[in-house]
């Protein structure tokens, strides 16, 4: 009961924050979508970090560590701590400057103008929205599942908050927060979320260590001494090809529409400076305790049916109820923080890149555009909620879709890099790369559903180019992840089709490359 009270209190606080943000808002799209580009350095860091940290950072990381061991930190966390700050440094700062100078609020409007082509923006919008929607649905599903799990009585096994009610609570609170507060309400909630996250790991480790019958070293040594569990404290079972391929996945971060939109919202470019330095340390603060506790969970609890629930079980066994409540609030907060950004990003893109771009703004004005955006937020959340209810049993499909969405966004990074740094890149290069990514994703989805582990999908001579790995995923030559051919293929398409087609006009090249060149005039 205590965890449920903590979580409900937290949810009420989020709705309240949305209300305060509403009072501060102005009725124009730049204020609603970007908080008038006024986000200061500390809030910017806390918010951009929260944008990227989903519930996976806590539950998924410990669950994966329970299954695969400590290698998960190097695979997912330390690779992100290297790649994501670099992309924010090189790409985020340039996006910010171009947004500030030319008024862009989304990547799509930048791509349209940079390559003098409406259609390229529309195609990229369609692909981005298609990759983002499953993510949004799974956030609501995750929220419903967690609320239901946390409120389940250990004696009666009855959930105080049933799954549909849990999904509804998450959907309503997210809608209220985004509907009322827009970007301002979303980033204020993110502050709370990141602070909760940053404190949780250290507190959980300290509390659990106090209650455990033995010291941490005892459990770790036992795992290392047993040949059956040694893989948990090494990377013996982790293929180096997967470990290496995974370093490409964090390229997706800056290509997620909500992440790019966050970059447009900073007041000053100096906000990025503190962010890029603090980002790897924040990853360390969250992931290290969660991965460690996941492995410790195996050592202390043995086999459990739901590895993603290992942290909840550890807290149940070794921590007071209030800490489980804080964890629940942290998870719900992570679910809703990223969901709110996704909903806002979809609404921003749809309102700016489709509604306003195709004449809606001229016809209805700025004020009505904000009303349209709010209506879109309600509609999209309602649809996501209904899908989350109707397809509860098909959650696995959405999880696969999200996994491939990361590869898809990572494969769009060469398009962004070309737009920002290569004058000669053309709309045809960008279009070819986008279609390549879309086609690859579609092909992967078809192959994934129609084949079983071990099936060879394409063989050239003796070389298995594509096959289904033991996990059931499509894999590339020698066991590399498909993100590798996706990123390389996308980069090749941008290059080849750009050199084969005429460059953008000299005026556009001057406009964009003088704006971000070292000696540009303001």
């Amino acid at each position, binding site marked *: 009961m205590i965890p449920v009270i903590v979580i409900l209190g937290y949810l009420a606080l989020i709705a309240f924050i949305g209300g305060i943000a509403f009072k501060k808002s102005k009725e124009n799209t730049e204020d609603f979508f970007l908080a008038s580009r006024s986000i200061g350095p500390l809030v910017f860091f806390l918010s951009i970090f929260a944008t990227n940290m989903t519930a996976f950072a806590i539950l998924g990381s410990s669950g994966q560590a329970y299954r695969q061991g400590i*290698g998960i930190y190097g695979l997912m966390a330390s690779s992100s701590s290297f790649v994501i700050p670099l992309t924010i440094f090189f790409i985020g700062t340039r996006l910010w400057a171009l947004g500030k100078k030319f008024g862009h609020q989304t990547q799509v409007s930048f791509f349209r103008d940079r390559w003098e082509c409406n259609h390229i923006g529309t195609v990229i919008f369609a692909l981005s929205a298609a990759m983002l929607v499953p993510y949004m649905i799974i956030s609501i599903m995750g929220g419903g599942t967690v609320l239901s799990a946390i409120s389940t009585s250990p004696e009666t096994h009855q959930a105080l908050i049933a799954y549909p009610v849990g999904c509804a609570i998450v959907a309503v609170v997210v809608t209220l927060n985004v509907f009322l507060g827009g970007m301002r309400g979303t980033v204020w909630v993110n502050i709370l979320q990141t602070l909760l996250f940053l404190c949780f790991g250290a507190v959980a480790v300290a509390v659990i260590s106090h209650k455990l019958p033995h010291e941490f070293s005892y459990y770790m040594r036992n795992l290392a001494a047993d040949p059956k569990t040694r893989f948990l404290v090494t990377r013996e079972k982790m293929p180096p090809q997967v470990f290496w391929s995974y370093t490409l996945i964090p390229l997706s971060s800056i290509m997620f529409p909500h992440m790019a939109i966050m970059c447009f919202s900073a007041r000053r470019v100096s906000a990025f400076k503190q962010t*890029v330095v603090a980002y790897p340390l924040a990853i360390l603060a969250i992931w290290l305790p969660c991965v460690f506790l996941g492995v410790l969970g195996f050592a202390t609890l043995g086999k459990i049916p739901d590895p993603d629930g290992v942290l909840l079980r550890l807290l149940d066994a070794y921590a007071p109820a209030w800490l489980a409540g804080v964890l629940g609030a942290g998870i719900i907060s992570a679910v809703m923080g990223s969901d709110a950004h996704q909903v806002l990003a979809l609404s921003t893109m749809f309102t700016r890149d489709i509604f306003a771009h195709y004449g809606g703004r001229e016809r209805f004005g700025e004020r009505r555009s904000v009303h349209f955006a709010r209506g879109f937020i309600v509609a999209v959340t309602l649809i996501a909620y209904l899908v989350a209810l109707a397809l509860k049993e098909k959650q696995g499909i959405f999880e696969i879709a999200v996994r491939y969405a990361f590869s898809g966004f990572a494969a769009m990074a060469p398009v962004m890099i070309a737009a920002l740094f290569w004058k000669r890149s053309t709309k045809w290069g960008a279009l070819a790369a986008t279609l390549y990514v879309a086609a690859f994703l579609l092909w992967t989805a078809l192959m994934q559903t129609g084949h079983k582990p071990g099936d060879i999908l394409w063989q050239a001579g003796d070389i298995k180019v594509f096959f289904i790995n033991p996990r059931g995923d499509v894999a590339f030559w020698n066991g590399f992840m498909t993100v590798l051919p996706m990123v390389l293929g996308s980069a090749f398409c941008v290059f080849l089709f750009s050199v084969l087609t005429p460059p953008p006009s000299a005026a556009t090249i001057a406009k964009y490359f003088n704006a971000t060149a070292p000696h540009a005039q303001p």
Partner: protein
Amino acid sequence: MMKKILLVLLIAAVYLAHQDSWNWSKADPMIFGFLPVGLAYHAGYSIVAAAMMAVLAALAWPKHLEDQEK
């Protein structure tokens, strides 16, 4: 120019350091008595990544973009 080359080499070196094949099958030494070496190494790697970003922010910050703040 020299500064740029050194910074590129720094980024490349930090990237390569991520692929710590020498720790692959090792659990020992346990750092602080309980952190397997592979985990401690990558925790340290995150700190090195932060230090690298601090160096980049100090020596290669795109100052010209600050013009857009005006």
